[in-house]
């Protein structure tokens, strides 16, 4: 929360302040995309509950691919579960 003077009840008028809280640090499993298998179909993007996946242009490929925002991905692995091409796998997060 902002360190400025508290408003009654902790109301925050500083819009978008949640973005400062990088929730990716909560992750135990990291989803990893195999760009060779990914077709850019966008199913993972629709299922991601945190809005952390975008299908966009990736270096070295002509077609857009799955891109994960690791700043906020909490590692629920729903994307891995839903990917029809088994293009997403998981690794245990370590330092």
């Amino acid at each position, binding site marked *: 929360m902002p360190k400025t003077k*508290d408003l009654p*009840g902790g109301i*925050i008028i500083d819009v978008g302040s949640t973005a400062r809280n990088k929730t990716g640090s909560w992750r135990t499993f990291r989803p990893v995309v195999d760009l060779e298998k990914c077709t850019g179909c966008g199913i993972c993007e629709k299922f991601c509950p945190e809005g952390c996946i975008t299908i966009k242009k990736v270096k070295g490929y002509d077609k857009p691919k799955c891109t994960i925002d690791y700043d906020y991905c909490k590692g629920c692995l729903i994307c891995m579960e839903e990917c029809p091409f088994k293009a997403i796998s998981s690794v245990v997060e370590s330092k």
Partner: protein
Amino acid sequence: MAREVMEGSQAVARIVANCDVKVIAAYPITPQTHIVQELAKMHADGLIDCEFVNVEAEFSAISAILGATAAGARSFTATSSQGLALMHEVVFAAAGMRLPLVMVIANRALSAPINIWNDHQDSIAERDSGWIQIYCESVQEVVDSVVQAYKIAENKNVLLPVMVCMDGFYLTHVYEPVEIPPKSKVHKFLGKFNYPYKLDPKKPLTMGPLGFPADYARLRKQLAEAVWNSKKVIKEVHDIYAKQFGRVYGDGLLEVYGDGSIALVAMGSVCGTIKDMIDKDELKDVCLVRIRTFRPFPKDEIVEVLKDRDAVVVLDRNISLGNAGAVYLEVRDALYDEKDKPKVVDFVVGLGGVDVNKATLNYVVEKARTVKSGHVEIVDGSEVSSSY
């Protein structure tokens, strides 16, 4: 202004209709039912211009008015007993979010055994929530307190929810001559509700965020200070109201009646009976100290009026099981630092609607003369002879 004879619940509905309320959400429960019934009827007849939300339970009722208040609409709900217990979670949230809700409680016992009659257990169980609690002696006081409640709650230095507590049946179902202050005068007194941080798509904000330990503690401290500091505003609002509408309830927090050396400390409608007995000299050397606001607790004020008495006899219409009555515990605590503190005793009376009549009060005062300080007794009615 003329007085009319009407039922307590009807009086509540009529004053709520005069407070420029925009949203009402409530679920009927005995003995609060007539309040909701009357408001629904007035709404159906086009006498109140507001949203009337028919909800499926009390949890939704208070959630709806919490949301409505957050959106900047003056709102109202009322409940009793189990209904208030069901609201419990949102009761705490409303205070923590500093939303100025106003709720009338028709005080009723809590289960089990199931019981529809009056005591203060339901609202006393919510005493730690951060709500201001006003306990009323008469229907007229309930009417006046509802108006004052909005004025207090919406004060920008307070921003706290207020419970106006009226004894179930004794006040909700009694017919009394009441003066309902007219709409124009009430509107002028209250002004427009202008919540400074209301929900508005044009000015987005976050309400009820997650509070990590340090944030939580800091905001709870802010809340605690707001409740303590509300005493000043409660007194001011009471005084301004008294000037404009002509009715006085002690200093707004506490009322002293009579000057005997034995102080009977009580809340609610039983105070009427006590005043009558004092007037008729039926209680020797007794005065009444009526607590009007249990929250915030008028600690300094109560010490001032009690410290020089010979004995303090607390009448509790509730009990904190495993210890004693809630009012007694706080009165006794308040007197701890006094040098020659009076004897303080507790009588838990009127649980689940047991009548607290003149015979009970006579029994309590006579017994109090003989027992030691610290005496706690639950009076279930069997002690009292009916041949008073």
